[in-house]
């Protein structure tokens, strides 16, 4: 397999003046596993499209330079020729599967190449074997999970027999279980079959131990290109770009007496270095007390009482009893299909439970009365862009007010809108089209328009999906600021455990439609073996803490700072 050479590639989209890629020059050796990362808008997705030949053949714009695979100039080849050398897998598996059954999807490419039937059969079998999907060969695609669908998309790409696989954020729409499934497949393709993998991803923490090389981009340029261990020599660069540094690396920098100049990139490495040290003993001493629960004498603001939910014969929720207290930030976690979104949708009145009831304060929530419910409870959908309908930011605020129920509008709504615009820092964009705002601004606008109706409680469905670490952090800090200033309660559905660990005051784990665990994050993340049953991986630092305490810790650190705090407070005590 030849090397992949990105030779001084620059690209400017047809509707833009600014180049997205600026003279990118990289050589990727055969059999390498390379991670491209960087803040949103840095050009990494554009680079992925250029690698796969979709730029310039299918996307309008001006391209300079070329991509070479060995001596073949990819940028001048037909797309069907390129796809037999370089395959591309996109973010959302549902958008890239055109057929109904697994076998038909994988066979689609070889059929179009008019290959002999025996070869089509052989390619289908081999591609499905590579991704561990053989047992699903005769299944219908709709019956697959998100992770399985993405593995199928990889299989269909592999059926074209490329030697390089380019993946553009293939796990961003997947739950932790699906993410692990896809990453395992990529590792196997790389290590076992020697395939070159170019992966564009934000999830550095989960990937760093698997890749051979990390390339970081910013404003269309490559700003870092190193092996994983050397990639963190300049942590300031990562922080400046808002790309998170793995917790284990941060810990190593904070404990130079243990790690010296080495950079551990796996939990195992950090565990080996810390095991038996005074730090491990200090942790064991200081990890035995449970966190105090909230004052349970207060009245809950939202309750699910003996709630069952079924879609026809399929039971989704079983006897759920759950109370949300005022000003709590409750994270609901669990694998896909565990019932998280169904639970939240019942509270908003999107559907009725098959048994039991949901109460907001003293009022029973009636299914179907969504706009009535919206006066007291807001729901931030995963795709915030779907929540914007106005021609300008100001009209966006007026949307619900003009069309909403009478009697729910404040007399001094104009002042309120001004105040909200100031809060979300959009005053200067009053007459701007919402879709001309940045992604973070649109997200802030989507939540602030919901606040015009004075809700007490906000349901946040995957609020950080598809955003890089910097934008996710900024948005969550904004939510924290809102909560502290206006005393909101949050119910957040999330797969991002680091965000959950950092911001939630309580975690509810759903498993197969039942409340499996309920407690403070420090205590919940200490039970990593039970969480593994639900397909949940605690943040790396929490896993390390639990392992160093031989899984006897009752509470664990959720951040590097709190891990260090545990160490130092134990030292002070002793």
């Amino acid at each position, binding site marked *: 397999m030849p090397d992949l050479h990105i030779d001084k590639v620059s690209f400017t989209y047809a509707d833009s003046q600014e180049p997205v890629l600026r003279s990118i020059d990289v050589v990727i050796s055969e059999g390498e596993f390379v991670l491209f990362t960087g803040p949103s808008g840095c050009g990494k997705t554009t680079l992925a499209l250029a690698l796969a030949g979709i730029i310039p053949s299918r996307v309008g714009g001006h391209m300079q330079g070329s991509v070479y695979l060995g001596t073949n100039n990819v940028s001048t080849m037909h797309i069907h020729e390129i796809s037999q050398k370089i395959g591309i897998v996109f973010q959302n598996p549902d958008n890239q599967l055109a057929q109904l059954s697994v076998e038909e999807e994988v066979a689609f490419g070889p059929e179009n190449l008019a290959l002999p039937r025996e070869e089509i059969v052989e390619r289908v079998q081999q591609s499905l074997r590579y991704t561990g999907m053989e047992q699903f060969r005769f299944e219908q695609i709709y019956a697959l999970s998100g992770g399985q669908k993405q593995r199928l998309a990889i299989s269909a790409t592999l059926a074209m027999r490329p030697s390089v696989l380019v993946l553009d954020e293939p796990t961003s729409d997947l739950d932790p279980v699906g993410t692990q499934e896809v990453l395992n497949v990529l590792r196997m393709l790389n290590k076992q079959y020697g395939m070159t993998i170019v992966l564009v991803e934000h999830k550095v923490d989960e990937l760093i131990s698997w890749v051979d090389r990390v390339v970081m981009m910013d404003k269309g340029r490559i700003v870092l290109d190193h092996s994983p261990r050397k990639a963190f020599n300049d942590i300031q660069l990562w922080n400046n770009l808002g790309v998170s540094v793995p917790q284990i690396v941060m810990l190593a920098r904070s404990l130079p007496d243990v790690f010296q100049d080495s950079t551990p990139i796996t939990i195992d490495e950090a565990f080996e270095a810390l095991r038996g040290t005074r730090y491990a003993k200090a942790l064991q001493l200081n990890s035995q007390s449970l966190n105090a629960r909230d004052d349970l004498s207060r009245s809950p603001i939202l309750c699910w009482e003996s709630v069952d939910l079924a879609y026809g014969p399929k039971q989704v929720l079983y006897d759920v009893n759950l109370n949300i207290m005022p000003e709590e930030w409750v994270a609901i976690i669990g694998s896909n299909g565990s019932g998280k979104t169904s639970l939240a949708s019942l509270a908003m009145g999107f559907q009725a439970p098959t048994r039991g009831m949901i109460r907001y304060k003293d009022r029973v929530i009636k299914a179907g009365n969504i*706009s009535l419910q919206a006066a007291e409870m807001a729901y931030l959908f995963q795709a915030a862009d779907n929540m914007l309908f106005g021609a300008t930011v100001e009209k966006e605020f007026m949307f619900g007010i003009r069309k909403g129920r009478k009697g729910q509008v404040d007399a001094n709504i104009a002042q309120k809108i001004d105040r909200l615009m100031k809060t979300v820092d959009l005053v200067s964009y009053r007459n701007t089209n919402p879709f001309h705002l940045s992604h973070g601004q649109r997200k802030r606008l989507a939540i602030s328009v919901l606040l015009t109706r004075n809700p007490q409680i906000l349901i946040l469905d995957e609020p950080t999906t598809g955003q890089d670490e910097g934008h996710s952090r900024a948005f969550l800090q904004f939510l924290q600021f809102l909560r502290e200033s206006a005393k909101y309660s949050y119910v957040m559905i999330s797969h991002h455990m680091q965000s959950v660990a950092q911001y939630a005051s309580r975690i509810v784990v759903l498993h197969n439609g039942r409340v499996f665990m309920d407690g403070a994050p420090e205590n919940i993340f200490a039970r990593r073996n039970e969480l593994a049953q639900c397909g949940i991986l605690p943040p790396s630092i929490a896993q390390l803490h639990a392992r160093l305490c031989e899984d006897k810790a009752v509470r664990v650190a959720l951040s590097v700072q709190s891990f260090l705090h545990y160490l130092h407070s134990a030292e002070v005590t002793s």
Partner: protein
Amino acid sequence: MINQFFFQSLFGRTIIGYLLIFAVPALLPFLFVKLIGFKGLRHLFSYEPKQSIIHKLDPRIKVIYPVLMGILTVFLNWDFVYILVAFTIIPWILLRPSRDRLRVIVTMAGIPVIGAIWSQALFHTEGNSTVHLLFVFPPTLTWMGTPGLSSTGLLYGLQQAGRTLAAVLAALILLFTTTPSEVVWAFYKFRLPAPAGLAFSTALRFLPQMIERMTILLQVVQVRGFDLTIPRWWEWRKWPGYLGRVFACIPVITIPLLIGSLRTTSVLAMVVDARAFGANTKRNTLREHQITVADRIAMASLIFLTIIVAILVITHIGNRII
């Protein structure tokens, strides 16, 4: 007394007249929502996997079938059209669709039929002198431009409905039992442009996703305060406002729906290009359909039916009188 009020007095006859004009058309969307609902929309035209004889039939026969039935119904007069309708029920008996799908079929076939019959009953005024009116509209309803509800119209509507019914029942067989790759294969074998087959089958493949997206958008507008709560039937004062909001909502959700669909389509177009679709004039398939006994019987039945119809038309026994 009541009889006299409703059938003799101008006021009573006006009430009956309005009911006849509006009750049935108003009932149709209500029936549609009740029988199918928003969630049912996603199954409206989607493939239902099953191991039936109909599923295993040669896809080419299933592509020809609705086209042929559509053509045959045009030539036949109405009593023979209903024999054709009876013929289109046979595949459904062999298919044994699930209850959910049965509800979709009955709704999709039944609602246009009721609509056709009723509209003809009201407005079919051909040969006015022979029109037999079941109910004569009072002078207060002259603005409708029709003398009343006619039995001739009902009969004519029934004839027209037979044609719709046969075509719909045949088309749904294709949609419910043929996968996108089979449609593409059939188009390729007929030397029709394969991209047309892919466009047709992909549209059907993504319809459930589009309906899912529409459901979410409807939830979003309500979360944003747009009141779409259906008033109770006795809350008549709220109905005009509700209907106004429903109509105002249509453009609001259409734009994001279209944008979302176009984004999906653009990714799919890139994927299909990358899978070399259309790159070669020739194409092969994983599975070559082997002609089975069932295919031969189905094909023979269609040929036999076509010959019978041709004879009926040529001999002026069953041809349509225009």
